[in-house]
């Protein structure tokens, strides 16, 4: 047992997966010698050698496309995209190939790869280092999209994503990479490679991050800790107990957990950092209304980033959903 940050937990998972299965290889810009700009892959080159941990040329389509070819040959590549926005040069490979390889091969040859994308703002980074592109992947059939929020989830979900035969877009909220530590056991959370499909469960279920029956707040990634803070404030300020649902899986959404929370509470709020229009919040809102409108005392509303380019960082806190904004949104739902 040790206290680990999310970065360390991811690093642990990669060590464990590579140890367990020599088909696992890591590719990306600066992932080997330096261990990645966020150090998620630190130490892996020394441990597993330069055939399996590769500093690639600077070309995202080349990286993702090569990884697809490797997967076709039976390897299990884990790709790092250096920052959110830099996935776009490789977008074509993801949409027309990674997402469709299983389908195009009668299910025989899925593109078994994991694409790790550190994403989101709040780290005072220069332009184009703070985007939240997850909804784009959620809209593309054939992908799984996940986002852990705690060190333990990060570890478990990374192991599951590597086990999963389908391509997994693994969104890493860079703002909470080192935001806190928790006990993460060295023990494997489930037996690897025993074909019991445990990965499926780890990758498809939401988590109740805070219990409550008065208001459901559905969120994921960097806004989870903020939402919990807002929930505490609501408890103090008006005695309202908000249930915070951390989605973890963005595709497929855990519709049962979402609808149950909304139905039980009768009121729901969705929170995310990405721009609002056609973001994941719209999907969650639509799902809840479609299935539980009669249980609702108020419409589901959304607290999100705005429909604008992520601002230069002196104004990023104006853009980001804050505890204040989440609380205000919650009050709106509660006072409807």
């Amino acid at each position, binding site marked *: 047992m040790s206290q680990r940050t999310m970065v360390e937990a991811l690093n642990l998972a990669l060590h464990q997966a590579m140890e367990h299965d020599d088909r696992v*290889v890591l590719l990306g810009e600066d992932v080997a010698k330096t261990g990645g700009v966020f150090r998620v892959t630190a130490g892996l080159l020394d441990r597993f050698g330069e*055939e*399996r941990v590769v500093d*690639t*040329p600077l*070309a995202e*389509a*080349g990286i*993702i*496309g*090569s*990884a*697809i*070819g*490797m*997967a*076709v*040959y*039976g*390897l299990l*590549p884990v790709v790092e995209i250096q920052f959110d926005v830099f996935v776009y*040069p490789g977008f*074509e*490979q993801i949409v*027309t*190939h990674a997402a469709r*390889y*299983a*389908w*195009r*091969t*009668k*299910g*025989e*040859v*899925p593109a*078994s790869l994991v694409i790790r994308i550190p994403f989101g703002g709040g780290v005072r980074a220069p332009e184009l280092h703070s985007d939240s592109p997850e909804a784009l992947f959620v809209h593309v*059939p*054939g992908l*799984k999209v996940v986002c852990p929020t705690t060190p333990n989830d990060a570890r478990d979900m990374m192991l599951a994503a590597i086990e*999963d*035969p*389908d391509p997994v877009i693994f969104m890493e909220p860079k703002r909470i990479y080192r935001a806190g530590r928790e006990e993460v056991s060295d023990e494997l959370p489930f037996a690897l490679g025993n074909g019991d*499909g445990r*990965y*499926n469960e780890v990758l*498809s279920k939401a988590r109740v991050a805070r219990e409550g029956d008065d208001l459901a707040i559905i969120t994921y990634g960097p806004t989870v800790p903020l939402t919990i803070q807002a929930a505490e404030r609501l408890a103090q300020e008006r005695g309202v107990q908000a249930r915070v649902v951390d989605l973890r899986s963005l*595709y*497929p959404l855990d*519709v049962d957990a979402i609808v149950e929370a909304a139905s039980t509470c009768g009121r729901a709020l969705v929170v995310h950092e990405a721009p609002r229009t056609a973001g994941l919040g719209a999907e969650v809102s639509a799902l809840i209304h479609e299935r539980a409108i009669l249980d609702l005392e108020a419409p589901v509303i959304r607290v999100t980033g705005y429909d604008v380019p992520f601002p230069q960082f002196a104004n990023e806190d104006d853009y980001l959903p804050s505890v204040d904004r989440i609380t205000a949104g919650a009050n709106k739902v509660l006072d409807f």
Partner: protein
Amino acid sequence: MSEILRIIGDGKEIPDAGVPDGLSDKDLVEMYRWLVLLRTFDERAVALQRQGRIGTYALYWGEEATQAGALYACAATDWVFPSYRQNSIGILRGVPAATVLAWWRGFGGVHGFWNPREHRVAPICVPIATHLPHAVGLAWAAKIKHESTASLTWFGDGATSEGDFHEAMNFAAVMKTATVFFCVNNQWAISTPIHKQMATATIAEKGAAYAIPAIRVDGFDPLACWKATKEALERGRAGDGPSLVEAYCYRLKAHGTADDPRLYRDESEAGRWMHLEPVGRMAGFLKRLGIMTAEEEESIRAEAKESIAAAVKEMESIEQPGREILFEHVYASGRPWTFDEGLAELEGVERPPEVKPLGPPTGAGAGEEGKTQ
């Protein structure tokens, strides 16, 4: 402009060179059989499209040498990555011709797709040049596993303009993967002639940007295609990395069945290249060498005709797949709940009439639309 490797003459001005080392008479006849099988498939597919029995089809008439010649050089364990233009290359590797025809008929799932691992033939790639990185990744993976598998990928002159061509070439060169980049330079990308596509006179010159050795061959000559590929594969397997083969030829026919080349080029130009087309040329070569008799030739053609006819029959015996096919094989890990919902919705309504290859559903200018690949 560098010289062009050519082995088979035209029986007139262009002299024959000797049969390359490593090819027996049997090989030569087998290669001819491949050429004929491809040609037969292609001509039949065009006819099927004209009859409204399959959809838009991307023909390759005249490019058989680039396919059969290159493939013949591959070991059975080597992987090949075709574009839409090499759509039926799999039939030389055990993919049923009916499956390829079914793909063009609009069938998916088990009818129109194959298992690439079974044949070492990747799926047909539609977006230009995007399969090149896959070929690189595959050979790279083989290297990591210390296996001698090589990869070969076909693409057109137009494809060299895409960023994926560049990234794939660079990765292959840096990682020294055993990859053959086989460019079918037919001098046209739909209506765009090569001189609007690039400023170089040749494709081969592009190898220099990656320190990748390049060779130009007569793309209508199966033996030249074979020889260049063979050497490239040997280089790759020896650990010397990728090669670029430029198979210089000419697109003798339309880009696809929806394309009308008269809109953009003088068709008499195609006529000037016609005598170089590979099937007749290989037959002439074999006859000049006394390797194949007219009877053998006839029987090869008849056999091909028969086998493709059988494939057509098989393809046409496929019934329109059920609606559930939409949701099949999308995820290898199982079906997300959204699929159950979708299927339930679908099953709640009457099924639309069977989709025929031609003509959009409601009175639109049929055929005009899906103009091209």
